[in-house]
């Protein structure tokens, strides 16, 4: 009788663990079904426990953001100095910031503008949401600072969205000023297709196809949402290695302490 009890005890843990894992995985994809949109998994440089941001791609992506998306979308959580995280030199950052002017006050309190500093946050294209809507046919272009974390599917979704503009299928009733997009929930989006082949000219000579630009700007936006990612993963690898060793040692000590106990 005790033998079966022990057998059962041994089986209990994996069972409970499996039950938890099953619950967590079943609950997660539940949200993906909403809106019946699909975003195929892409191979991102920043995937996986050792992934990093492809510097060249992220820098090209910054160029796409600056030249294209920034006309409509703000990036207000990010400071210019954070661009050092994708390998842009301090002098280049100062130049990038300096080319933008931000609102300021003169000594006697009159509104004026001054060149931005690296410590300033990205300047928003519109003074407020109402102005943004007015300029975009009533639709509000969301801030892109954390957009990669704010959408189911993350980077895969952004890539699918940016490459998903098509002519509507026959019979599809498109609203006024709306555009057909395969990835967007409901397939009608207020954003006009932002990317066009050779819409930007890359300094490094990379051919600027729509797909290439989408890939690059997505990499940049993934960085913008997770500027801490590389150090987070680097620290994480060390922490886990340390903990595995510590667990081994602790377990060995436990065995030693318990060696004299019949149990």
């Amino acid at each position, binding site marked *: *009788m*005790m033998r079966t*009890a022990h057998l*059962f*005890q041994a089986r209990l*843990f994996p069972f*409970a663990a499996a*039950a*938890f894992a*099953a*619950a*967590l995985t*079943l*609950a*997660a994809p*539940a*949200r993906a*079904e*909403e*809106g019946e949109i699909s975003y195929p998994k892409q191979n991102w440089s920043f995937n996986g*426990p050792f992934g990093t941001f492809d510097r060249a791609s992220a820098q090209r992506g910054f160029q796409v953001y600056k030249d294209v998306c920034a006309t409509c979308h703000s990036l207000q*959580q*990010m*400071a210019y100095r*954070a661009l050092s995280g994708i390998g842009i030199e301090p002098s280049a950052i100062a130049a990038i910031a300096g080319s933008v002017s931000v609102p300021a006050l003169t000594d006697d309190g009159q509104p004026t503008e001054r060149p931005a500093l690296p410590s300033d946050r990205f300047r928003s294209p519109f003074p407020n949401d109402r102005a943004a809507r007015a300029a975009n046919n009533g639709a509000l272009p*969301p801030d892109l*600072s*954390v*957009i990669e*974390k*704010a*959408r*189911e599917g*993350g980077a895969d979704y952004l890539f699918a969205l940016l490459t998903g503009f098509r002519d509507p299928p026959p019979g599809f009733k498109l609203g006024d000023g709306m555009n057909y997009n395969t990835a967007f*929930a409901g397939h009608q989006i207020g954003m006009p297709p932002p990317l066009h082949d050779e819409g930007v000219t890359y300094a490094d000579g990379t051919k600027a196809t729509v797909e290439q630009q989408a890939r690059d700007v997505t990499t940049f936006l993934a960085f913008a*949402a997770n*500027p*801490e990612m590389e150090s*987070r*993963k680097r*620290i*994480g*690898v060390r*922490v*886990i290695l340390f*903990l*595995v060793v*510590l*667990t081994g040692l*602790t*377990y060995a*000590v*436990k065995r030693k*302490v*318990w060696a004299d*106990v*019949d*149990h």
Partner: protein
Amino acid sequence: MAGLHKSEFTNPVINWIDTRMPVFTMIQKEYGVFPTPKNFNYFWNFGALAMVNLMLMIATGIFLAMNYTAHTGMAFDSVERIMRDVNYGWLLRYGHANGASMFFIVVYVHIFRGLYYGSYKAPRELLWMIGVVIFLLMMATAFMGYVLPWGQMSYWGATVITNLFSAIPVVGESVVTWLWGGFSVDNPTLNRFFSLHYLLPFVIVGVVFLHIVALHITGSGNPLGIEVKGPQDTLPFHPYYTIKDSVGICVYFIVFAVLVFFAPNYLGHPDNYIPGNPLVTPNHIVPEWYFLPFYAILRSVPSKLGGVMMMFGSIALMFVLPWLDTSPVRSARFRPIYRILIWVLVLAMITLGVCGARPPEGIWVVLARLATAYYFLHFLVLLPLLGKLERPLPLPESISRPVLGGGPLPGGAMAKPMEKA
């Protein structure tokens, strides 16, 4: 009764303090030599894990609070400042957010342990009930914490949950207005939630203290569910269980680290990275994963008041569980039928969790209702009946007997199966 304590500590400083305030003697008694059953399995780690987790929540929370701004217009941005500009702020925040998930994982396992091994039975009823109070306080704390970053799910989660109180007949609407401090979830709501979110964890610390006091009066249970018969059945807590708990704590930290460093948003909802907006309702409002089973119970009842009562009832049931379960045998090991039913209950809870994450339509409603029905059936009907119908296996004579002897026990030991050993 006043008088100095005769301290046995040899270190002069410790002795001097201990003589005047015998805290060292107390620690030695309650955590050093405290007699603990020798047959714990690793399920008995989870109380210590919960304690560690609570301290981590308080530590990370205090530092977050130094950088957080409780204002509807600034809360979201202040959390982003923490993520980007505060040194290791991302570690604090991801640690705190995932710490809440870890806390619930740990406490759910801890509760499961109690259910499986009958830890709630006499004389540990009060200990169990204090545990249920802790669980309720944790839920309140986590709910209000989730409102603080003021994302879409924060705002709408707060709106949905506070609105539940409007189901109270007659005074419901006034109660909700009172809770909000206005006519919708707004700045006063956020401020009071922050205040309470800071307060409740310390209330939890106090209640945990009572939990331990009660535990050290009754002593711990054990996987056999029989009482300690003498010193041969126990070991001093230190070093045997300090080291065994340390092993568990290490493994716990590995799981925690995987979440924080490699999947920090896996258990979160993407919508909470969209600033809270009273004018835009999300497609599906879902609470954090650890509330999903209760959320599913709430939604499986067509009437609002009924749903709210079922949801609170599902937890209120836990308070009377010691009297619902009529079986004198504690451990499921010796209860052939209960041992199956407890897994059906786990399955029902997981089903509820899955249903809670899906829109309340079609098959999900049916499944949620079936699981809800089983939940209540289990506690209200099956447990009271089972004590009468089930034929428990013979109990071992003592903890050390089967441990030392191994083989089958002499007939005499098996003769009194129904006696609560």
